[in-house]
């Protein structure tokens, strides 16, 4: 039963993303709590659980979002998959790893979303999007990562190694 607690937490994080995060603007963007949480959990528990988190976080986000349904889920799935790859137990507790991973995860996620939006007729310009959204987001999410990662690590330790199976 305890293995379902993270999903409840992730659902709450998704709601926070649409209610609290809009009030926090740094460098013109809002920290992406769902993305950071998915990347953190994936680093700690591996790709399998990371992708499950990505599914839940992505679907919730897509339901709230004005973007076409599925774009966020797709982006987060890729983040969940990539962040959990190649992580060995010995590295999972090193705070440097997530700080290095999150800018790349943000870049991958934003590129997927921007490509999806562009393909569906939404156009803000790639150059402008890079300058105003993607680069600031990479920095802002890196700043938020240590806090979320430490909390996720604490939850990971409490739950033990009982991993969720698909």
């Amino acid at each position, binding site marked *: 039963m305890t293995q379902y607690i993270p999903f409840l937490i992730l659902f709450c994080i998704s709601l926070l993303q*649409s209610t609290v995060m809009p009030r926090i603007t740094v460098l013109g*963007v809002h920290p992406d709590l769902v993305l950071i949480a998915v990347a953190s959990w994936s680093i700690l528990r591996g790709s399998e659980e990371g992708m499950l988190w990505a599914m839940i976080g992505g679907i919730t986000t897509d339901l709230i979002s*004005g973007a076409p349904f599925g774009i966020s889920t797709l982006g987060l799935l890729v983040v969940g998959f990539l962040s959990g790859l190649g992580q060995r137990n010995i590295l999972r507790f090193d705070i440097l790893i997530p700080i290095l991973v999150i800018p790349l995860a943000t870049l991958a996620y*934003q590129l997927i979303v921007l490509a999806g939006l562009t393909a569906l007729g939404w156009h*803000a310009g790639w150059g402008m999007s890079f300058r105003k959204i993607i680069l600031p987001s990479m920095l802002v999410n890196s700043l938020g990562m240590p806090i979320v990662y430490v909390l996720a690590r604490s939850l990971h330790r409490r739950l033990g190694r009982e991993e969720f199976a698909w």
Partner: protein
Amino acid sequence: VQNLRSRSLALGTLALLVVMGLILDELGALAPLEGLFLQLTTPIQRLVDSATERVIDANSSLRDLRDLRSRNEQLESLVDQLMIENVRLKEAEAQNEDLRRKLDFRETHPQYILKAAEVRGRVIGSEPTNFMSVLIIDIGTQDGIDKGMPVVTERGLVGRIQKVGTNWSKVLLVVDPSSSVAALVQSSRAPGLVSGRLGGELMMTYVPQEETISIGDVILTSGMSGNYPKGLVIGQVTTVEQRDIDTFQSASVRPSVEFDGLETVLVITTFAPVDIEGAATGDLTTEPAAEQDATIVPDETATPVP
């Protein structure tokens, strides 16, 4: 008998001593002895008296404390009630002010039927992607809301309904990059196209070179293209870009609506938008704008909802 005699003797002696004492006291002869006694006993008396006083005070304080505590609880409860009442009154005052402004807007735009909605989740710029500008309101199809309906506040244009559910709607804000509005400059009537930019900015483009546009000019919806009614305030010009080699001028526009602080909005339910999809992509050349405009006839017979 001897025992009785000795007891009587003792009684008589004591009585005699008492009588002598009375006489000596009357004569003032006992004063030094009395002084010495009192001198010795006064500190002890003070001590005892003080202790007694403290006990009495403590008892009294305890009683007072109980009274004070009870009184304090009553006062705290009263303060809580007053605070709640105060918050409620302030909220009512703010709501009253807000509704008064909306009523003013309604009275100055009697041709539209307006539905008021509370912003349920302020999601402007809160998209997970940070790319889009959308907010969710708490009215939907059950309130007569339909896709494409314009959303306004008393300050001006907010956006239009993007998606509708039974009791919710998503509003695509006018500052979203996918949003574009046919506009005109209020003073010179110069036409143009206002579109959203990343970061909550607006840009007015396609303003003919021969037209006049200046900083501070108010920009209104022109009604062309069919996705918004005519005459709604969009914003104010902050900078103008005019180069002789360009075919058109452009200008940065500051939105009149403060999107971050939105609490309630109005949805114009009597306006029938035309060719929403075409207008959303900013492709104004797909159909003749003038012809589209002809179809935008706000319901003149409609009466404002009380």
